[in-house]
């Protein structure tokens, strides 16, 4: 429930530890200050006599600055240390020393995330499969406006900015599903730019990679076959890629293996045949303002295309 407080990576853990420390210090400061205010008010509540007109004491004021100064210095020092030691802004890839290399390239679009695995060439949309226990260097870039890549349980957030490349480390300590979100207002559908990070054990990850490299099976079921025809007859392939077919455009999210996704439309809807058909029928009703126009498909056509897409797993 509190992803910021449930770190699953060394970096997120270090940030969480710092947060607890500063929270603790803040609580102590608050109790002291509120306590002093409370005592002053309590004591003064019924005082009838004219109080002593105390103008202040420079000495005392200097003394009571010592505590806050020390606290501030302490917090500044430990947060500076974490900035440096966590190597939170990676400059050098651990294995090859070049500053350009990255394991993953993440591109933010209005309003979806495109992820490319640089070694295997696998492209994903709105989900990232990674092996556990490995510190991955992620290159972050934007195709349009500023977005922000944030997986609270695994890493700090980092803006993706057009005209600029940012880099972070992404590492999952153990297998699991981790929620990611866009954290910089980027227009109409900023709310639905969620993504998932799936951390698999290295063996499972290798299997997943293999599976992704296989071309998709041809649809068998009649609805799906007809849906495939509609998909390629309509302009779907002007925007979308389905690996192993002639659809190779990159304007919209990659649809390869879409059937295996848990969510669609940046988290707006769960992945099911009904929802996918609803989406195809009228994307603007689910994610108003998104870049996918209404293709005026009939219910039948939408159902069939959904069946085709649900066969891509």
């Amino acid at each position, binding site marked *: 429930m509190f*992803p*910021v407080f449930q770190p699953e990576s060394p970096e997120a853990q*270090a*940030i969480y530890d*710092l*947060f607890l420390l*500063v929270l603790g210090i*803040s609580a102590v400061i*608050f109790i002291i*200050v*509120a306590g002093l*205010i409370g005592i*002053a*008010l309590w004591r*003064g*509540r019924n005082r009838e006599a004219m*109080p*002593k*007109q*105390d*103008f202040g*004491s420079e000495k005392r*004021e200097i003394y009571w*600055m010592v505590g*806050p*100064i020390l606290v*501030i210095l302490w*917090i*500044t020092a*430990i947060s*500076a240390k974490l*900035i440096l030691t*966590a190597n939170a*802004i990676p400059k050098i890839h651990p294995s090859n020393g070049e500053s350009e290399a990255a394991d993953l390239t993440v591109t933010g679009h209005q309003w979806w995330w495109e992820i490319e695995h640089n070694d295997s060439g696998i492209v994903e949309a709105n989900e990232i499969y990674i092996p556990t226990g490995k510190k991955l260097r992620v290159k972050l870039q934007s195709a*349009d*406006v*500023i977005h922000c890549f*944030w997986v*609270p349980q695994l890493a*700090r*957030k*980092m803006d993706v*900015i*057009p*005209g*600029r490349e940012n880099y972070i480390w992404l590492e999952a300590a153990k297998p699991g599903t981790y*929620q990611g*979100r*866009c*954290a*910089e*207002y*980027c*227009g*109409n*559908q*900023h*709310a639905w730019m969620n993504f998932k990070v799936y951390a698999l054990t290295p063996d499972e990850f290798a299997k997943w990679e293999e599976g992704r490299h296989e071309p998709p099976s041809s649809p068998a079921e009649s609805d799906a076959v007809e849906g495939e025809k509609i998909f390629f007859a309509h302009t779907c392939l002007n925007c979308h890629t389905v690996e192993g077919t002639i659809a190779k455009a990159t304007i919209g999210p990659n649809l390869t293996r879409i059937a295996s996704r848990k969510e669609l439309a940046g988290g707006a809807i769960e992945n099911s045949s009904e929802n996918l058909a609803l989406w195809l029928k009228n994307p603007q009703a689910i994610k*108003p*303002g998104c870049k996918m126009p209404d293709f005026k498909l009939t219910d039948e056509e939408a159902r069939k295309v959904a069946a085709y897409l649900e066969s891509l797993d």
Partner: protein
Amino acid sequence: MSTEVATPYEPVAVDSTTGLLSWVSTVDHKRVGILYILLAVFFLLVGGVEAVLIRTQLAIPNNTFLSPEVFNQLFTMHGTTMVFLVGMPFFTGFSNYLVPLMIGAKDVAFPRLNAMSFWMLPFGAFLLYFSFFTGAAPNAGWFSYAPLSTKPYSLGPGIDYWIVGLVVMGVGSIAGAINIVATVLCMRAPGMSLQRVPLFVWIMLMQAMLIVVTIPPLNSALALLSVDRWLEAAFFEPVRGGSVLLWQHFFWIFGHPEVYVFALPAFAMVSEVIPVFSRKPIYGYAFVAGSSTIILLLSYSVWAHHMFAVGLGTSANIFFSAMTMLIALPTGVKIFNWTATMWGGSIRFTTSMLFAIAFLIQFVIGGLTGVMFAAVPIDWQMTDTYFVVAHFHYVLIGGVVFAIFAATYYWFPKMTGRMLDEKLGKWQFWLWLVGFNGTFMVQHFLGAMGMPRRVYTYADNPGWALLNGISSASVLFMVAGTLVLIWNIVSSLRHGQVAGNNPWDGFTLEWATTSPPPETNFDKLPEIKSRRPVWDQQHPDLADWKFAKTPADSGSRPDRAKVCAWAFVISEAVFFVLLLVTYVVFNSQATGDGPTAESALDVRRTGIFSLFLLASSLTFFFSEWCLRTSRRGAFLFWLATTILLGITFLCGQGWEYYGLIANDVTIDRNLFASTFFTVTGFHGLHVTAGLIALAIMFTLGRQNHLTQEHAKPYGAIGVYWHFVDVVWILVFSIIYLGVFQS
């Protein structure tokens, strides 16, 4: 030629002191102050409605009460309204009303400028809100990040209305601030040295100086954004060489000091309220005053703490983290001063005091979460989530708005002659306390649960619906509290208890006159020998000047025309510096594309025309000298020469522009052209404005209205004119001579 002095032009006096016309045409600082406050109250309601709509949409997951388009416009307008149409007017209003009274003056330094400053606000508000009628209010957030706010991504006119509205309101703010600076420095009554001014006055002086230097960066940013949007330049377009981050830097160089424009007056207000209701002087006047000055200076060194997630680099992050931590010290230490003021005091729990106490606690909470953000790695998790929304609402509402309420209950009697009802006041206080904390405390948790800010809806994640529901429901308490306040104001104006001069046994000069004060403020001023002149008068055996000596007033006061001119020039200087920085940023590396300064500009020709402009400074100096020594003919001659020299310079600039445009070097051609035309264009506008002012002076001179006694204000115009020359020297060095290139 007649040597008689003609009678100076007198504006037609409006006869009545009642009725709409008297309010619309007023130049009395008290009425202008009330107009500001009324405007702020109106927009508090408007911004509040926007907030209610936002919270209604967010009350349940997947809500369809508002479309995303409308939601995004609402949160943009909510932020913009609260900053520019509520916060700033409230403080300008209180400042306008109280500062002249507290320093024993009859009015502000420039009453007509004061009125004009006010009227810029409704004008700007009209421009901003007109956008709703075009179906497209601005929707890029109140800080309008590029490139979302640039043309391909925001095609409607909303952002354009935002730009124009902000520019107009900004002009009013700067003019108002210059007036306060001149008032405090120049109009203090005898005995009221700067060491003896009430903390409210000192801190509002700091705030006014802050405004003078802080709004110009916003104007620079707006200038660049408008040139991008309307003239197709590429300042913020990376594909054509622009920089998206440039907007953020400029905006936050404005934006962070802007929050101190809010925080400082809140401090000013509680620094008056708490001592009176503790029956003691403020503990450590010098520290409270001095720390406010330090905040003014430090506030320019922290801006990039809004950009920790941008990836500026380790050194930048550490520097801004350290400076942000540092600025917490002068801010936080004041809490000790206010607590020490209450310590040992005889506390009166009036509504005003209750709000001030709540301010202390809530501001500490907001300040502590601020320190969390200053620890950069924590920022890396919490920024752009509801945790930061909670943080800034704690300082802005829990701090600033509560301080405004404290000030309202405290000074309403002085402004209207009637007390606000205390029972209703306590109702408002408790409703607001519950409502505010209910709405915003839970948002800290929502941030930790991963809820980003500026989302129009959210999925039914565990815990989100409950906390959002609590947050939204609590808004009703604030709404109820606001209605109670309005009812209190309306009924107290009619039947409230009559206040008398000093209902609270206050310490400072505003309590030495009637409630409300007469038009010239004071029939008779008490003697000013300390920081609490009315206290001294009421409690002679405990008089401050017997126990806490303050240095005697030297009596010297600077000339207000000069102060005004210098303040204005400083503010314009900041504006130009940022435009020149933009030029250097975009022209320091040869990109190889298109015209450059070397290829496109005729340095020698412009150099010659520059000499004309520089000569005009010399001739102006002669004209001023002649005016001071009453040599009318020579004065007019040198003034005419100045004007002609200025016109010659502008003709040269026109010739240059014509040549460039004829050669296809237009403002949208490349970044050199964009920055060149923007910098020299704004400079040319400043020359033109100066020439208009000089032409007016010439006309007045011809009609014998300018004499030796006008030499000082005339010299003030000279400050502006010389400044325009200094800017040109910088522009020429940087653009034409390329001195920044090695």
